[in-house]
């Protein structure tokens, strides 16, 4: 983690609340499927820990601030965009690769197909949108 931004910062909280609500929903869904509560909570604990660490350190760390969705300056904006693009590219490869592997093994693969369609489609929409807007 790094420090040193000159810009006054304000703590971003909405993303943490959304993450925690999603975690609670996830626990509810897993318990509804019949899994014990402790197991469900254990799965969400890591997510809660990460949210907590980022929320606490976001005012002191440029990295945590970027992870909280508030890049401290233009360089961090660029880092954020590159990291997002990298994650999306990994997602596309995972979805397309998962689809191919499941297809080869004769397994149900519609989830991978939907995910690949969504990711690739949103990329195309993004290209068209930003070409129009820039």
């Amino acid at each position: 983690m790094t420090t040193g931004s000159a810009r006054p910062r304000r703590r971003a909280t909405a993303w943490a609340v959304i993450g925690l609500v999603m975690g609670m929903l996830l626990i509810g869904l897993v318990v509804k499927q019949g899994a014990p509560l402790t197991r469900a909570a254990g799965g969400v604990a890591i997510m809660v820990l990460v949210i907590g660490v980022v929320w606490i350190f976001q005012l002191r760390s440029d990295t945590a601030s970027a992870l909280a969705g508030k890049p401290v300056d233009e360089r961090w904006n660029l880092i954020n965009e590159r990291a997002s693009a990298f994650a999306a590219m990994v997602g596309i490869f995972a979805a397309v690769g998962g689809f191919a592997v499941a297809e080869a093994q004769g397994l149900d693969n519609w989830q991978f197909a939907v995910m690949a369609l969504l990711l690739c489609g949103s990329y195309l929409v993004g290209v068209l949108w930003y070409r129009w807007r820039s």
Partner: protein
Amino acid sequence: MQNDVRRLREDRGLSQGDLARHLGVSRQTINAIETTRYLPSLPLALAIGRFFEKPVEEVFHDDRER
């Protein structure tokens, strides 16, 4: 793309943190600019030029022009 940010900053006896505070960016961004790992946006390059009271092309210059 090379730049004279480090020399200009040191000539004025400023730390990277001081310059960062003046420009409203992080100290790491100043370091990345000085070591040419990051090319600043045009607004930030202009702000750096204004801060040092020099035209931006005197602060930043293409390798081929040197």
